[in-house]
């Protein structure tokens, strides 16, 4: 069998989720080719060619493919699909946006956010906010999967470099047009690949307090910053930082939840972290049911004390 992995990238580098999805793609058992579709995206293709286990990289470099719009990328993937038994993408914003469009054009089901490959057609995926794990088998002639990055280790760089082959974008009467974007740039580690995450909830009370309390501890630990939905909705943190069922799914070595109650939807996004620390003034907060170490107390007192103890 042969698998096509659709890379998530920003034209110059690969998203960490791509190498995690590669690990899952390799577990399907066949050769893996990686599609890098974008504009001026040669550098991303070079990075893909260096990943261990990649047999070939397909490079589509076309202005129409800039900004990862679903319509032209799905059309391109469908034009290549004949050669492949499985089509895989990381369950990132782009992967989730594009891949179901591909599946429907191919008239096959998609298995979303797999967390385990049992065999080339059988997978595990969490449902109901991770309160149940479904084992599903695809009966379609092609398998279409998105991969939850937190469940797979990133594939390492290999010794060899895979060949890069150009492929052409598919011309079409696409009716979606890029207008603009506002992307935050940060020196902190990215949430879904960070080893340590410091996450803040509604208790922080304001964006100013969030920045004053969460950011220094995150910087001290070299950590990424996360947030509950309540903190994001209130504007304390950007939408991109939301951890949970409907935000980012993370599994770092250490997750520190500060003033977060531990609603089902939040737990769905972080309960597979290796070690969980919670600080909450309510000793009955549900977050303590999953925390390895809990402190019952006021975070505005406890967090500075943690920083002091670290020094």
């Amino acid at each position, binding site marked *: 069998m042969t698998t096509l992995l659709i890379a998530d990238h920003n034209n110059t580098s690969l998203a960490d989720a791509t190498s995690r999805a590669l690990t899952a793609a390799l577990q399907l058992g066949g050769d893996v080719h990686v599609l890098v579709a974008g504009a001026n995206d040669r550098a991303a293709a070079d990075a893909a060619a260096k990943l261990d286990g990649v047999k070939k990289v397909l490079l589509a470099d076309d202005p129409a493919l800039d900004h990862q719009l679903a319509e032209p990328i799905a059309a391109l993937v469908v034009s290549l699909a004949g050669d492949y038994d499985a089509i895989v993408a990381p369950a*990132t914003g782009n992967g989730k946006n594009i891949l179901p469009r591909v599946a429907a054009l191919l008239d096959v*089901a998609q298995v*979303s956010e797999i967390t385990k490959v049992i065999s080339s057609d059988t997978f595990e995926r969490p449902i109901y906010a991770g309160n149940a794990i479904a084992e599903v088998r695809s009966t379609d002639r092609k398998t279409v999967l998105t991969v939850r990055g937190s469940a797979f280790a990133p594939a390492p760089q290999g010794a060899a470099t895979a060949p890069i082959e150009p492929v052409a974008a598919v011309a079409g009467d696409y009716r*979606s047009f*890029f207008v603009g974007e506002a992307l*935050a740039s940060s020196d902190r580690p990215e949430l879904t690949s960070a080893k340590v995450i410091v996450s803040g909830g509604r208790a922080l009370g304001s964006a100013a307090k969030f920045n004053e309390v969460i950011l220094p501890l995150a910087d001290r630990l070299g950590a990424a910053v996360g947030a509950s939905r309540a903190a994001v909705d209130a504007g304390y943190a950007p939408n991109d930082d939301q951890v949970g069922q409907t935000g980012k799914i993370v599994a770092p070595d250490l997750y520190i939840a500060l003033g977060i109650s531990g609603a089902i939807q939040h737990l769905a996004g972080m309960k597979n972290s290796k070690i969980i620390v919670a600080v909450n003034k309510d000793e009955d907060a549900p977050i303590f049911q999953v925390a390895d170490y809990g402190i019952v107390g006021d975070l505005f007192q406890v967090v500075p*004390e943690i920083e002091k*103890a670290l020094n």
Partner: protein
Amino acid sequence: MKILVPVKLVIDSNAKARVKPDQSGVDLANVKLSINPFDEISVEEAVRLKEAGKVSEVVAVTIGVAKAQDALRAALAIGADRGILIQTDEMVEPLAIAKLLAKVAEAEQPGVVILGKQAIDDDSNQTGQMLGALLGWPQATFASKVDLSAEAVEVTREVDGGHQTLKLTLPAIVTTDLRLNEPRYPSLPNIMKAKKKPIETKAPADYGVDVTPRLKLLKVGEPPARSAGIKVKTAGELVEKLKSAGAL
């Protein structure tokens, strides 16, 4: 212009799903069911567009068992004008849902279909994108802002790293994210009025769509349990524990 809003009845977001002992699925008997929260946001957005005079009619549609019409009633109470129930006792996967919705869209000719980004039971996040593919319409998923005009819709989307704005030529597909709006609480008079709004009942066969599942559900198991840890008294003690656990 008409707006079509697909809505699904799902486990309430405050309820906890329990796996059946025979691992055949999740036990939904005696569990509170509600309209999918993202669909509530979709209906709210459509109704606001109608209130702004940009839209003439909001049609809600659901596919599911007879009780699924509770989701339609919830939509009608927010302000949708009428409902369509495509009734079936089968488990219908997103691809087949999208095929049925494509037929409804062909019949109703909406300018925009607004769906939720994900149903909080199956967590698939597929149906809107699939519907876009089947109809050949452009899509803007994970919307946090929707600006509708007669020929186009400009949508700001939540993407990894921030926001992206797209312009789609109509007809188009939009899927909603959490921050698009805050759905209203329907007033009692509106809940009463909703009971009188028309709901048309159909079957998948009326649309000639084959809803046979493509995926075989082999089993539904419990997630690995996480045992509660310990409470520590001081920050110093916490840092000690983390150091000896190798986490720092």
